[in-house]
């Protein structure tokens, strides 16, 4: 959803009265107080066909990915690709800087041809000496990619989340487990979905959260 689709309040447009009375929904949360119930709820929600779901818990819950049907993340492949890029960069950097066999075109100015440092009497093409540089660049590319790609994939930094307006939800950092269904889910219907979650075993409460 783009920002343009969002109704902007306070503009000169005359909005229909119903739109103001029925604000946009963010989703709903269902509250549980133990791991087994939240796992059961996640299974039930997945089996009911909901896709845009999430679980909020005070600590990592083993098996929750399978219960929610979360697909394996693409992050390792991104990290692998960037690690290989780092390795290639390191190899090219060291070889270009030091080695004397690279075919450098004549019109490249002399200053950009690489230095051919004589270090410790070693040959210019000393792969053993290049490996620390190649290794470090591989690590650096992979590590930074892992962190920042994780941010991007998680849509971080997110300055606020509508869920946090719910007082009940604050216990997600303490002793409660919440299952959340996003309003953008194709199957989402405020009343039916709330009823469905409410009837799950162990559900203590259901709250529908409004967007903005």
């Amino acid at each position, binding site marked *: 959803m783009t920002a343009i689709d969002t109704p902007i309040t306070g503009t000169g447009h005359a909005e229909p009265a119903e739109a103001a009375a029925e604000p946009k929904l963010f989703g709903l949360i269902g509250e549980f107080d*133990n*791991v*087994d119930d939240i*796992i059961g709820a*996640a*299974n039930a929600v997945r089996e009911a066909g909901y896709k845009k779901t999430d679980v909020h818990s005070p600590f990592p819950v*083993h*098996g*929750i990915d*399978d*219960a929610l049907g979360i697909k394996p993340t693409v992050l*390792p492949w991104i990290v*692998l690709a960037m690690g290989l890029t780092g390795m290639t960069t390191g190899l090219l950097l060291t070889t270009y800087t030091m080695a004397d066999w690279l075919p450098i075109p004549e019109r490249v100015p002399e200053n950009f041809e690489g230095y051919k440092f004589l270090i*410790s*009497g*070693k040959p210019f093409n000393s792969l*053993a*000496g290049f*490996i*620390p540089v190649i290794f470090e660049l591989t690590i650096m590319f992979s590590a930074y990619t892992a962190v920042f790609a994780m941010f991007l994939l998680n849509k971080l930094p997110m300055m606020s989340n509508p869920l946090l307006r719910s007082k009940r939800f604050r216990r997600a950092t303490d002793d409660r487990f919440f299952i959340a269904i996003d309003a953008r889910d194709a199957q989402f219907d405020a009343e039916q979905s709330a009823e469905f979650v409410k009837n799950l075993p162990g559900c203590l409460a259901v709250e529908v959260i409004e967007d903005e």
Partner: protein
Amino acid sequence: MAHGHTTLDEADTQAIGAKLWPVFRMLCVLAVVGAVLLIAGVAMDGESMKRFFFAYLIGYCFVLGLTVGSVALVILTHLFRAGWVVAVRRVPETFAANFWIVAIMGAPLLLAVFDGEGRLYPWAMTLENAEERLHAAESFIHDYEHGHHDHDHAAAEPNEPELYFVADTDHEGEHGHDKTDEGHDDADHAGGYEAAAARIAGMAYPDDKEEARQVQSAYYDGLLSYMLDYKRYGGQLDGNNQVPIDKETGKGKGFTWFYPLNVALRMVLYFAIFSLMGWFYWNRSVKQDETKDVALTTRREWWAPASVTAFALTTTFMAFDILMSLDPAWYSTMFGVIFFANSITAGIAMTILVCMFLQKKGYLKTVNTEHYHDLGKLLFAFVFFWGYVSFSQFMLIWYASLPETTYWFEIHGMTTVETAPQYGSGWTYLSLLLLFGHLLVPFGFLLSRHVKRNLTALAFGAVWMLLMVYIDFYWYAMPFFKSPGIPFPLAEIGAVLLLLALVLAAFVYRYRQHAPLAHGDPRLHESTALDTNVWAPIHH
């Protein structure tokens, strides 16, 4: 349903008893087969005793590493208060508890230490044998250098035999008499083993490979014999380059690090420390099966930091004494770390394989893919750790380019000197096999989680890594056998089969006396909670 509570199978909480006897018997048969192969391989070799010692030492380092690695796995997981490991911990615990048996299995090596011949460890030679070798080497080199080569200075000093391997103080600065290469003058004048090493590093080999090997061997003998005196008597040579001998006792003065008895006593100390640690962690864990006493866990964890410290020092010095001293002139402070890396790789790989075997036999029902995944991660980590420290050792020595350390790599085939006897030999290919087989290929193989969670693939990786650990020990030790090429490894295969079968038989013998699972451990639920099937089906 309270979370994390699984009912334990009865087979996992009671002593196995007689059910593993067939396995035990099969291992004993394998040990006999190994012994026969060892005897056959040794008998076929011209230097039988020397070959026996080398084959036995390499096989012994492998089972020793395996056991040391099990000790490491146990104390490290206690140090970190790891909960996940509890389901599989009885396996490395039992290997660790058998350390005293492994220690006794090292007894044949004592013969190599005390017989005075120095077949295995050059420092174990008696002074007479050492002097004989020193003089033989010196006269060989004298003949070689004055007979085969014309050079400028030889004519200027006729009939003056030179002692290359003793401190050359008299001649300092008189003549730049470097026979082989330019640029080694400094090392030359320093005298002693630096000079000898410089000659090896900078020597011009004859074209014939066999002759080159003899020349190298002579230089090398001189180097070792000098170091023998140097190290055994604390390097306190008197003005006449003689080792000061106490007139009354007839023994050398000074600190005698490589005096055979001192080495043997040190080995006893190392093995005592390891055996004590191995026994302690196993014993307290077995006790806990009955008492379920949490204090036993806290006690073990309290001792873990001290154990790790003792472990690190003991492993380092043990590696120096048992393996690095095959060449007492060469030194690498990384050596103990590499020994540890190999050890824990073997320990983890063996834990994986034994757990799989026991599960096939119907034990360890709580162990699941999550545990194998975790063990696989550790295996992967130490594959790279080995590569990291091994490469560091090579690169620092290569970069510093000190002759007294670089010649070691030449002997192991890692050299660019084309005339060197080992250049392009089997040792070179073995070094490359280690680079690819011990590091690059398993790194790529074990990188993926799908491989680590696929039990067949993980078992293959574990067997492969055990093989590579063995080959690494082989690569460290066997070049000092100084045969022209890599000898047919019948004796080595026999020795490792014998020792591995014995260690596994001892494992089975001890393991069957107690419950297969450390079911009294207070962290057991953490480990069984790794079983996500409790909550949700996993589709593998």
